[in-house]
């Protein structure tokens, strides 16, 4: 019963409202896979762009007709993953070394 409801839903797998967000989960998966790679491979450009975009797309998912919770969940997750990658990159380039700076003074 529940599966039928899902299958025939106006935002279900027969519609692009489902597959759009599914495609965007690719960013989350890619981001997670890339957390295992050395931070030098992280693209600052791309990661920063994604942090901004996922924030905006979370709002978009809430406001679009029909409201898209799958998309919202996807971009909330991506926001977290991309922020994490950004912090890894920043750390590897020495931007987050606050204690070190104090010691040098």
């Amino acid at each position, binding site marked *: 019963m529940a599966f039928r409801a899902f299958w025939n839903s106006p935002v279900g797998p027969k519609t692009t409202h489902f597959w759009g967000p599914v495609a*965007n989960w690719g960013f989350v*998966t890619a981001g997670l896979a*890339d957390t295992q790679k050395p931070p*030098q491979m992280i693209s600052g*450009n*791309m990661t920063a762009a994604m942090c901004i975009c996922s924030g905006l*797309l979370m709002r978009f998912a809430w406001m679009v*007709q029909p409201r898209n919770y799958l998309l919202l969940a996807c971009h909330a997750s991506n926001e977290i993953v991309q922020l994490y990658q950004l912090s890894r990159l920043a750390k590897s380039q020495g931007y987050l070394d606050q204690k070190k700076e104090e010691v040098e003074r």
Partner: protein
Amino acid sequence: MAASKLQAFWNHPAGPKTIHFWAPTFKWGISIANVADFSKPPEKLSYPQQIAVTCTGFVWSRYSTVITPKNWNLFSVNVAMAVTGLYQLARKIRHDYFSETEVMAASKEH
């Protein structure tokens, strides 16, 4: 004339007073970031990330014509994502699989 067109844009359901405008506008950042990364050496590109960008671009180009309101800004930005993603993938694949012969030939000569 121009004023009324500007007003039409300003008040559009997918116009600059709404998230339907700003989300796609900032999504251009992803394509711009990708174009900036055209100059990065292919070893530093990420297959998972570029595949995600490309697939998203294709699927969302379709998605943006089916939602309410229809969003051509979103459509064009996703077309751009698909194109830049494909180009980056081509660069990386060419580097990983098609320049090996050149490298092998060079090492054989030595």
